[in-house]
């Protein structure tokens, strides 16, 4: 059970060699010359959305950077030139040069540097002015997508970059991020298969029940569920066998970590934008966080992503510790925050094993222009400074659907409504609905043998569960030496 492969092993070496050879034949670069690739920004595209705070603050897939663009360099280049994250570098193509900070990115080709368009704008507006670095000076009309003649020099200054996730968890200290150490690296490596359960398609076909076995592996008493091992009240407050009971399923095989769910959630739930400084202080407010983990060879890593929001534990550790009962359970199984009861001890967030609770350290909504206030979702309260907030399962939508169903004198049905993240997921990885209805999409998803609860051993009995990630990579595309096994 400990060695679950995530990469196909057969014929790996020869094909990888062939592909490298092929690559070397196609492009020949000088020792100190780099290829520059221009990418449209995943957040602000070519710059047209640069004045949008939501898009500036959403963490970019892979790098988790916000509020800036950076020159993405490989670890090998970083080591060779002694570049640290946030180190300013000068990139020169012919007679043009730009200065911008570097960000070491696993999987970046060592002969290539990625630049993101759409930043360093000067006439954008209140938010977008001066955010990031303009890379257009290097982009010539005769070659708008890439340039092959770039040279870099490292400058003796650093620039603060705001990443929502510092640690990427590559083996040993091959990868150096701020505050990152070997100890943590090894630990992250060993946790990835626990948190983001994954295997190859072949392995899954041979062992269709491996996920379930893995979840049960260390359970002391096999006759009792994990929830019955919880130190918290083993008797749920309500009878969860009655009425609609809300639950969610997230398919990690489909998820591409695009972050659309997080933006949809921000828009639906009036989540404030806190700005670069607060992101650097670790206070971004997104209710959905995309965790990115990297394993294996830094030049060609296996990336695991996982979107994490409140999982609505039936035996929620946050609820018992709140001194004023501001976070409680509803009879339909949702862990709810009563904002105007919350006094902000933050104890719930400390005791949350998933770390999905977000605190209003400042009054982030004080200076909202009237127009922006008008743009807020009227169904969701604006939170004041000093209160905790988190995913509500879009309860306003649940209520609206319930009221409609009552008005139409019928029971609620699967598909009456969607929650915001589910609605926006382009891969349809998120299912939400009544888990008491055996025919609902979420029930069907949860019955699949890939279903598992995050940190199930804590006995929190979460309502959001995940479907394990099944990889079916073309061996020609995967790295050569890496055997991909973890434990």
């Amino acid at each position, binding site marked *: 059970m400990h060695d679950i492969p995530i990469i196909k092993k057969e014929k790996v070496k020869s094909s990888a060699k062939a592909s490298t050879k092929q690559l070397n034949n196609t492009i020949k670069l000088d020792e100190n010359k780099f290829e520059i690739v221009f990418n449209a920004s995943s957040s602000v595209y070519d710059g047209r959305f640069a004045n949008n705070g939501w898009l500036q603050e959403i963490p970019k897939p892979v790098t988790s950077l916000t509020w800036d663009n950076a020159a993405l360099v490989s670890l090998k280049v970083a080591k060779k030139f002694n570049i640290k994250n946030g180190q300013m570098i000068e990139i020169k193509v012919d007679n043009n040069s730009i200065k911008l900070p570097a960000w070491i990115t696993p999987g970046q080709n060592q002969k290539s540097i990625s630049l993101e368009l759409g930043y360093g704008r000067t006439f954008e507006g209140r938010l977008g002015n001066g955010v990031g670095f303009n890379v257009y000076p290097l982009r010539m009309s005769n070659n708008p997508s890439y340039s092959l003649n770039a040279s870099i020099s490292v400058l003796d200054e650093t620039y603060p970059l705001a990443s929502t996730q510092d640690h990427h968890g590559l083996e040993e200290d091959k990868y150096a991020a701020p505050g990152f*150490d070997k100890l943590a690296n090894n630990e992250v490596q060993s946790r990835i298969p626990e948190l983001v359960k994954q295997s190859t398609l072949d392995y899954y076909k041979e062992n269709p029940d491996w996920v379930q076995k893995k979840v049960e592996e260390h359970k002391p008493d096999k006759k009792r569920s994990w929830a019955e091992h919880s130190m918290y009240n083993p008797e749920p407050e309500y009878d969860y066998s009655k009425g609609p009971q809300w639950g969610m399923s997230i398919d990690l095989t489909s998820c591409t970590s695009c972050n659309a769910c997080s933006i949809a959630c921000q828009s639906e739930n009036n989540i404030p934008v806190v700005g670069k400084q607060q992101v650097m202080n670790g206070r971004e407010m997104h209710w959905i966080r995309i965790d990115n983990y990297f394993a294996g060879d830094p030049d060609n890593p296996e990336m695991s992503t996982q979107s994490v929001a409140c999982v609505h534990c039936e035996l929620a550790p946050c609820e018992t510790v709140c001194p004023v009962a501001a976070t409680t359970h509803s009879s339909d199984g949702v862990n709810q925050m009563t904002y105007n009861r919350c006094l902000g001890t933050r104890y719930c967030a400390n005791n949350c094993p998933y770390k999905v609770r977000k605190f209003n350290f400042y009054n982030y909504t004080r200076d909202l222009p009237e127009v922006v206030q008008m743009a807020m979702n009227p169904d969701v309260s604006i939170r004041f400074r000093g209160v905790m907030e988190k995913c509500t399962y879009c309860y306003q939508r649940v209520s609206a659907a319930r009221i409609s169903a009552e008005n139409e004198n019928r029971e609620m049905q699967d598909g009456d409504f969607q929650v915001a993240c589910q609605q926006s997921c382009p891969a349809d990885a998120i299912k939400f609905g009544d888990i008491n209805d055996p025919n609902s999409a979420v029930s069907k998803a949860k019955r699949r043998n890939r279903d598992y609860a995050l940190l199930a051993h804590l006995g929190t009995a979460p309502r959001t569960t995940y479907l394990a990630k099944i990889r079916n990579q073309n061996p020609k595309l995967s790295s050569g030496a890496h055997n991909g096994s973890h434990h």
Partner: protein
Amino acid sequence: MSNKAIKSKAQIRAEKLLPGNQDFTSITNDIAGVPEQKKTPIQWWLLFGFALSLLAIFAGSVGFLIWEGTGIWGINNPIFWGWAIINFVWWVGIGHAGTLISAILHLFRQNWRNAINRFAETMTLFAVICALVFPGIHVGRIWVAYWFLPLPNQMGMWPNMRSPLIWDFFAVFTYFTVSLLFWYTGLIPDLATLRDRAKGFKKKVYGFFALGWRGGNRQWQHYELAYLVLAGISTPLVLSVHSVVSSDFATSVIPGWHTTIFPPYFVAGAIYSGFGMVMTLSIIARKVYNLGHIITVEHLDKMAQIMLLTGCMVGYAYSMEFFVAWYSGNPYESFAFVNRALGPYWWGYWAMIFCNVVVPQFFWFEKYRRHIPFLFITSILVNIGMWFERFVIVVITLHRDFMPGAWAMYNPTIWDVSIYLGTFGLFFTGFLLFLRFLPMVSIAEAKLVLPESNPHHGHDHE
């Protein structure tokens, strides 16, 4: 019934604890003489000025905190608790020595406590006040902090009695109330002494608080009984308060907090730090007020012995935490502890080990237990070590728990520091006012160790 026998017991003891031929009058004059000083010593004014400026920093910082919000601190997601909670636990811990010395040592008839109990109790009161500041100001919405109280209200809302923070709140408040009563009860005979020696307005004030004490036989009987009962009530509190504080952590699910060893380990640590603080303050006071013959090296020696004991207890707890983390086979638990010792905050962990485990080992030797400059430095190191212990528990645990995707680092801001320093202003302002206006050693109890106080004085039955 020989005089020799008496000298070999009571008198020799008395000479050790109260050297120099002292009697009731000289003790009263020496101790009551300090608050009766006509002219306040310049050193007192200097210290008081310093304390007041720290208090001003405290007031300013708290004002800014209330105005801006807890965002001015270094706390973030996932380190939702920072210096405020560290300081709270630290001050509560310091506040432990007072009741231990007063109550438990009283019940065990350890008369050597009589020279330091007033000191320790006063220190307890102000330390607990400093501690109670933090749960009040660290919350997000300070203006509704009274929701901790079980006040009947139109909302029909009630505190969540399952929350350790509520237990904590009650435990610390109970402790404060009982400590205050205990302190005040012990003070009554001395207040009467001061009343009898004062004139004019002072006489009225001391007289008001002396509650008509005359020192009659019946009054002493009632007093002794009341004192004993209060000591009995306080004794379980010494063990309960920090046990309850520790359950803030121990009842959570977070690896590194979720441990059953916390209550005894916290209590030992609290007594350790409390004695450290009593040591620091009494060394200063006996120097400034020339009270070396009342707070003697013998007393300091005994305190050092208790610090050795409790220091070894916390050392045992630290090693046991590691053992259990390994023995449990729980990888999350193991990492939490390895990360304490070898992670990015290794310096915090090893500062704690040095101050709390290594330093007290010198107290195995009498030479060091009686070396006053060494004791002074050690007593300060003890409290630095205990601060780091709470830093280790609060910050290092939270910065890396279950989900690596949410891991982060913690950087305190100037406001974390200023509020912490500010509480010293609060503490020392109160303590200096106490030194100026009240007897710092219990006059009545200091006399108890004199042979004349022994009911069998002159009638030894051996």
